[in-house]
């Protein structure tokens, strides 16, 4: 089977937490954006996720760590670890204990020099010991996984030494229980304030990797989630996308083998067309974001494009052969198209 690569690049929006109590001056606040690229190798069934972190010029602190949620509490199809290797320099696992269950299997493929990485008992992938000064970017932080893309949360933390801002420890003389609770609460508030967290695309547990009907259901759900996050806009556009997916599923249920691929294909075409048009409009490097669009304007964020297009391609790869043969020529055409910067 010939290897095919799908891919795109995007920038993810960020949210900076706000503290609930007066915080010390000079705490290393940070704002981080994450750019994600996802590719899929049908031959191995491995998705590759590449993340580039940019510390905003307005940030105070240097980014020290980056965590991506990889929890898997939804069950679903067992995910293989075959072909997933931890080749990143600075990687270390958890050893035999504690056993991390409920985490998407991933491979830490590579990362910038000077960073450490590994899984955590909190079902996250973590990269730490780095330093991204304000206004600079570092990447890629590359994971591999058999899990298709979905919506994930991330947290980026700046370098922070609490004793620089909180002068008393909980066991210092005269520190009561109430005082100790305030110390801990203040530390938590500072950490919540200085860190960046948000949503991006990462591996998620699919309901199925091979059942086209379930895959379509998952894609429909992902589309709804993307719309709720503001990654997708324009009622007509969204309705058109829904129509294609609904008719594709109905065709599957009617066993109309040629109809479903056509609808998925149409779905992909609509995404690609919107993505191209949008890229051209924003070639002047404007930031993408919902705040730039009203409810009636057709809009497709890079995260949504990445999320929906790759999953639709996966569905096409699982549909009956005649349609796959028909898609062959188109694939060659599309692969060429994705090998540019995709913007």
């Amino acid at each position, binding site marked *: 089977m010939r290897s095919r690569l799908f891919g795109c690049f995007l920038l993810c929006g960020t949210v900076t937490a706000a503290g609930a109590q007066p915080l010390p001056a000079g705490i290393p606040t940070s704002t981080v954006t994450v750019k994600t690229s996802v590719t899929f190798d049908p031959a191995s069934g491995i998705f590759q996720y590449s993340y580039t972190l940019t510390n905003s010029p307005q940030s105070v602190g240097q980014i020290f760590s980056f965590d991506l949620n990889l929890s898997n509490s939804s069950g679903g199809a067992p995910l293989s670890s075959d072909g997933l290797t931890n080749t990143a320099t600075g990687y270390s696992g958890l050893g035999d204990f*504690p056993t991390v269950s409920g985490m998407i299997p991933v491979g830490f493929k590579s990362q910038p020099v000077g960073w450490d990485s590994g899984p*955590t*008992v909190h079902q996250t992938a973590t990269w*730490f*010991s780095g330093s991204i000064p304000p206004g600079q970017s570092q990447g890629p932080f590359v994971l591999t996984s058999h899990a298709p893309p979905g919506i994930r949360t991330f947290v980026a933390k700046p370098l922070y*030494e609490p004793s620089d801002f909180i002068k008393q420890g909980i066991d210092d003389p005269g520190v009561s229980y109430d005082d100790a609770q305030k110390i801990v609460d203040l530390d938590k508030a500072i950490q919540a304030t200085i860190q960046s967290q948000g949503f991006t695309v990462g591996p998620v547990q699919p309901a199925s990797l091979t059942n086209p009907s379930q895959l379509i259901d998952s894609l429909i759900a992902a589309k709804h989630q993307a719309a709720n996050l503001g990654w997708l806009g324009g009622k007509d556009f969204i309705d058109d996308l829904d129509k294609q997916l609904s008719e594709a599923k109905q065709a599957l249920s009617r066993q109309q083998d040629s109809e479903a691929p056509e609808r998925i294909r149409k779905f992909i075409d609509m995404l690609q067309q919107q993505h191209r048009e949008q890229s051209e409009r924003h070639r002047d490097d404007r930031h993408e974001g919902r705040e730039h669009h009203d409810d009636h304007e057709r809009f497709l964020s890079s995260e949504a494009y990445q999320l929906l297009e790759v999953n639709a391609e996966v569905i096409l790869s699982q549909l009956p052969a005649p349609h796959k043969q028909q898609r062959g020529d188109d694939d060659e055409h599309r692969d060429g198209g994705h090998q540019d910067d995709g913007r």
Partner: protein
Amino acid sequence: MRRAERGQSLFVLLALAAPAMTLAETAPPQIYYSTFPANVTGAGVGIVADNAGNAYVLTNDGGISLVSPQGVISAAGSVSGSPAAIAVNFANGATYVSWMDFSSGNSYVSQIGGSQVLLPTANFAYVSGIAVDSNTGHVYAVETYFPPTDTNGDGALLVLEYDAGLNGPLKSVTIDKGDAAYLEADGPSAAVDSAGNVYVAAFQNDFTPQPAPLRPLEHDAVLALKFSPHLTQTLYNHEFDVGLLPAFFPFPVDIAADPAGDAYLAVSADLADVSGNGYRGGVLAKLNPAAGAVFTNNTISLGGNPQGGFTSEFPAVAGDAASNSYVLANINDASGSHVQAVKYAPDGSIAWNFGIFGNNGTSGGNAIATDAQSNVYMVGQNSSASGNFTYVAKFGQGTGAAVLTAVSAASQDATPTKTLSAPLGVKVTRGGQPAANVNVRWDFTSLPSGTTGQDLLEVPGFPSTVVASRDVPTNANGESDVQVQLGNMSGDYLVAAQVSGATPGQINFTLHGKIFIGISLSTPTIVPLMLDGIVHPDSVLVASVTVYGAGGPGDTIVGYPVVVRSTYVARSGGHDHENGHRPVGVFTVTNSTEIYGITGNNGLFAAVFRSSWTGGVETLTAGTTSDLSVSSVSAIVQVKVADQTNAPLVDISTVAYPFITYSGNTGVTTYKFCPGTPIHHPSSHWATVATSTSALAALEDWYNKTKVVLGVNDMSLAEGGIFDICSDWRPTLNSRTEPGHKCHRGGNSVDIDKTGLSNAQIQKLTAIMGKFGGNRVIEGPIHYQFPGRENCFGAGGQ
């Protein structure tokens, strides 16, 4: 007392029979029934009993037999002639017999084992009645006497007084109605009451001349006479009619008297059967001190078949101190002869009545007597396949002083609030024989302090009423039983059975009210009180104390006071003082190390126990507050921190790892001596298995990345609990100002020596610890908190 035998039938004796009617009293129990040896062939003539319970039987062959209180018969003497009557001095047991030698025509009175006197003879005389005044010992004899002046042979009565040695006569009285009447005394026709008055009964047959050619008018009657002591005065000379009139030979067969001066006469007289035909029956007449008739009864009222000419009789009568009277009744009917014993109340009603040998048709009685205790003695004849035999029987309460003996064990174990498994019992005997209807007073004479709810139950199942005493008369076997329900306290309960005048007068029973205590815990393991400065929900347990009796844990005892106390086992945890002291848990209700309570309806007392701040072994001991003899019971409480699998804390300092060093206290037996504070703690490097494993993995990861060996400082103490090495430790429940390692109590904390580490290195270490679940908490050293019971202000937690 008894008249001379008059040719009755012989009978076979079998068994007692219940009375056919409802009577005022229960018939007395049989004390003995004895048959005479085969060589005693005479029928009974008379019977007397002394105050020692001995009976003397006079038989018509002249034999005198002694019957012991147990009914053993032995020969006591004999007379050579025809015996008439027998009498006894109750005061000293001296026994006399009157008899006649027909060959000589002489009559005698003989004292058994003593002297003998020849009575006046005149032309002809034969002795009949004999009586003894127990106050003076004087003996009175009655002769039917035909003096030389008697020209027509109508006879007279001669009443004679002798002293106890039969010297005399001291006094004599002749009753002679001249030619107009015939007098004859027969058998035991004399009696003496307790005041010394003498009673005589006789048959009188008088004739009233009628003008010729009419025959004299004949009148047969009973003559009753009463004399003052020593025969100084005739108190009455009363002639009265008995039975059908005109009477035909109403023949007195026995006489008795009571202390009230009443006289009782048993008379053989003509009665009418149901068809109106005359038949011979018995009449009992009671005369008051003035010779007035109190009542008359006859054999008709006792059943039998007064029809067809059968003969019934009262062969003997006796009285008692309470003015009751006792008769034997020989009832003859178509089925045979039956003997009954009958007690008449003072008003003449039947108190009890029973057929002595059943209705076998062959039994008969001859004489009856009572003693000072109203025991009834009787002698009679019966028959068996081998022939006739004489029997003697005793019914009543026995003779002599009541003897009280214990039937139950004098000392036995029992269970508070419960009824004894078997009643307490005593037995009352007199003369070795069971004494029925003797009142026994049962009392709790002593109770354990504070006891309530004790009870004396007359019979099992009797409605429970708390009583201090109860009267329970003895039954037919002389036994008095009482069920005892103990009160709610353990200890000795003393129950006394008392019989007035008995020997001994009181018997004590000691009931050792024993209880057993059990204790159980809702959980044997709790965590130290304040892992996080608050009362941890896993720091309490419920101690359940049960109090039960000998029946086992199900035999619960309600309302029993108990106390539970908590103590520590020295050096059983991670926090010890030099003298072994350490804080101990308390009961929440009292906030102290002891609690007092009372078992509830299920015999249970439960108390919530809360651990102290320290880990280690504690002991909860349950005991009683009132009975030091009760063994207390204990349960062990493990106050400790454990992980989710309940595995105890482990001391990582017992192992040397290449990537760490240990600071502070290390090793199982290492104690830290804080300057000026005699507080000892073993290793401070204890943690749950999960925490120690995670921390070590993180530290190894760190070392692999940095090749920097870190120093591991304080973690937790053995079993967890407050970690206060060298701190001013003043833990109180409500204080929130205690210093000390606040987050080192649950085995989830690890301090790292940060000496020489840059902020970047600390951040890196924090990130690595975070990979393994450790969260940094701002402390002096670098403190990492791992998940577990210890929340540590939200940095740890489950």
